[in-house]
């Protein structure tokens, strides 16, 4: 029982959310999704805007009531539990700090509602302030803090309640790039230290990849794929996931031969062997090959396929090449590690493109 509780800690079953504007225009934001979250896991809902990830999070928090389906926490249905009784503090994208309360009062807000004694409140707030590095700012107002500090107050306000589960709604999207990376390690550290289950909404793939135990990719109200960061990155199950998570290149190809555990496809008259997937293909079928930019190599040696260099961008640790290939463009990324000299190509020059064939994924067009 205990075991089951931990494995199926937060369960969403057949959840649908339809928004109605009252004039008969219904929009289905979330379409019959099911999801099981393990206790202590860091789970990310990842997807483009409008995919239903925030709506899903808000249904878990109780701000939206699902049109159909059940949400259960530790084997208890929470469909009818009011949002203020769910005890799932949320870190908002806008932080939603109370502008008329000091930092101390902001953090202590939930504790005061729970009618804890003054000493406990002082103690807990001090502890959390220490943990997220806010000591000395307790008497300031939110308006007097920097964005990063405000973000940490929002986090502290949630953590101080010692919740079993904590919700994040794109909490880092208002921070600059450097602070974002710093803060995400910070969040991850605290989450692991306190053993909290986290449900985290983002549209930033690197955030999802770096923080998550499980990533839930959503698209148009449905779940596209669930898996660990490695699984999702290495084995995207659809061209949508491949595109979204790895910025994959897509190359048109024809299936020329179907073998027992591999397929042979033709590109520019040359054959490429690709591992089989669960999908069935027929001979002669037009397909898409997805390949990540880092698995594309270019050289002047006539070894592979033919392309034309459109533009190259030196980005410090890497160089990105945009290559015209088969009436479309593909991207190649080369690492500029020490000793490995950057290759120089001229714009418009004919180049030879080679693919690391182990990284091909095949999808129906």
């Amino acid at each position: 029982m205990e075991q089951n509780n931990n494995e199926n800690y937060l369960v969403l079953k057949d959840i649908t959310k339809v928004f109605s504007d009252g004039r008969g225009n219904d929009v289905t934001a979330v379409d019959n999704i099911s999801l099981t979250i393990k206790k202590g896991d860091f789970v990310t809902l990842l997807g483009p805007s409008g995919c239903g990830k925030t709506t899903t999070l808000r249904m878990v928090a109780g701000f939206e009531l699902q049109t159909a389906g059940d949400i259960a926490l530790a084997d208890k249905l929470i469909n009818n539990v009011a949002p203020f009784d769910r005890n799932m503090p949320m870190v908002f994208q806008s932080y939603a700090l109370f502008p008329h309360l000091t930092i101390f009062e902001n953090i202590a807000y939930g504790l005061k509602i729970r009618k804890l004694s003054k000493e406990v409140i002082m103690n807990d707030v001090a502890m959390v302030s220490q943990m997220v590095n806010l000591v000395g700012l307790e008497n300031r107002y939110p308006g007097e803090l920097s964005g990063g500090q405000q973000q940490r107050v929002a986090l502290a306000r949630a953590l101080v309640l010692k919740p079993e589960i904590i919700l994040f709604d794109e909490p880092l999207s208002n921070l600059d790039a450097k602070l974002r990376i710093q803060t995400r390690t910070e969040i991850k550290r605290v989450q692991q230290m306190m053993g909290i289950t986290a449900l985290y909404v983002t549209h930033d793939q690197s955030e999802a990849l770096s923080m998550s135990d499980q990533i839930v990719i959503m698209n148009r109200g449905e779940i596209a794929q669930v898996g660990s960061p490695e699984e999702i990155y290495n084995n995207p199950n659809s061209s949508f996931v491949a595109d979204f998570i790895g910025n994959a290149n897509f190359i048109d190809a024809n299936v020329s031969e179907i073998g027992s555990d591999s397929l042979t496809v033709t590109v520019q008259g040359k054959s490429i062997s690709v591992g089989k997937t669960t999908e069935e293909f027929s001979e002669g079928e037009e397909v898409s090959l997805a390949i990540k930019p880092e698995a594309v190599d270019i050289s002047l040696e006539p070894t592979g396929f033919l392309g034309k260099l459109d533009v190259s961008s030196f980005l410090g640790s890497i160089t990105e090449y945009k290559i015209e290939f088969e009436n479309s463009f593909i991207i190649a990324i080369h690492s500029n590690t020490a000793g490995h000299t950057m290759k120089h190509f001229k714009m418009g020059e004919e180049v030879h493109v080679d693919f690391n064939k182990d990284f091909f994924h095949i999808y129906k067009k």
Partner: protein
Amino acid sequence: MANSKLKRRLNKNSFHQLTSDPALFIGVILILASLVLFIVYPLYAAAKLSLSSDGVFSLSQYQYIFTHSYYRKSIMNSVMLGVIVATLATFVGFIFAYAIAKGKIRGSGFFQSMAILPIISPPFMFALSVILLFGRNGLITAKLLHLDTSGVYGLKGLVIVQVITMYPIAYMTLVGILQGIDPDLETCAMNLGAKRFKTFFTVTLPLALPGIFASWLLVFVGSLTDFGNPIIIGGEFDVLSVRAYLEFTGMGNLPRGAALAMLLLVPTVGVFFIQKYIIKNKAYVTITGKSSRRGSTSVTKGAKNGLFIFTLLVSLFVLLFYVTIISGSFIKLWSVDWSLTFKHFVYAFDVGLTTLKNTLVLAIVSTPITAVLGMVIAFIVVRKSFAGKQVLDFLSMLSYAIPGTAVGIGYILAFNKAPFKLSGTAFILVAVYVFRNVPIGVQGGIAALKQISGDIEESSTNLGASTAYTFRKITLPLVRPAFFAGATFAFVRSMTAISAIIFLVSARWNHLTVLILAQTEIMRLGAASVLSFALIVVIMVFTFIIMKLTGLKQSQIFGTTN
């Protein structure tokens, strides 16, 4: 099929929010019930009376009104007056708003005060001043120009006093809109080669047009439903609101009085709908973002001087009226004996002290009720979703659209017998104040709440706070300025009410404005001046106390700057 099932779920959901929060549920029911009882029911009573003859449905009252030139004339007069006043007041209001928001003329602070001062004045104070200045014994007409004229009574006098009374409405509508027009747009137009004049006519004015239209309609309705000015200075120029009153109380022809009041309702409700459903969607500017730069270069020095002189002249004209009222309080017999005296004070306090006290008590009682109710409704409308929300929103704003005359008549008809026998009591006056003024609180509350991101309240809920706790600890402190602005307006409007309450006052519970009207009618202008003066002082003291207690600025309370 599946779709209709989903729909049912949806409805259940919106109802669910109501039932899962009992405080909200009970609150909504109570508010709806009181809105129906004090807004819809009186209106229904008046409409019913106007539409029946000998107990059966009949249009005979309306037929009579439209077939007799006597009544047709007052309808025509009302409309004509409304059109003239709306046009002039919008013009004056626009100049003030433009001079302050865009021109940044010298003394903007002073002109801002001058643009809202008339709002906190008794309803016919200007009419009284105009009589003192331009009447038969007027200081200017009779003494300085030696004219024997009563020309100020009628259309001319009415236009003057109504424009002065109502240009603040136009100003307040327009100043926010002009401030909301990003100066960068004007700079950009000039950068593209438009001269300042051209910029004004191709960018600024078109962007302000929805506001100008809105302000015109508001003033039009204000003029149409004005009662205090026409009854004093209208003379032979008969208007609907006064005719309805005379018909109802003077001649005791209740059905015809009710029918005339109902006629006033047509344009006011029409404008209400235009405001609510058309202009709102047409407005180009939302006053949420801060303009990137405040310094506007779109007004030339010459134009600035022109704006300054115009606003200064209007301001001096307004001030002249105040000086007149104050002088009138001290002068023995206007135009005859200019010696100074306190006898008006003695007399006025003799006849008016109890009334002043009662007026003040009722205003002070109704003010917090109005402000709290308005804020609660605004909160529910903005933050909650449930079946029937639109009804609540609509009803709470509706009384804004009902002319005071119709309200007064409706209340008399609705509350003169069991089970709601309230006429003659203080309660009926408090009810009128609360329900006539609540839309202002609702409107201000909605505007303030919409500026607070929903995240903030959700975050409070998420941390475990109930709806009531969130409202008390988060929402209320954040909407404090709007709350006190609403309260101040409610107080001012209760103190200066006339058109509705003139039907409802009694010997026990009289209102100061009604007393001033009576004194004016018996030509005790000195006493009338003293009582008006007293009313202004009370209002100013109250506003001052609110400002001191809350630390809010005048502009925050009267909402003229963002």
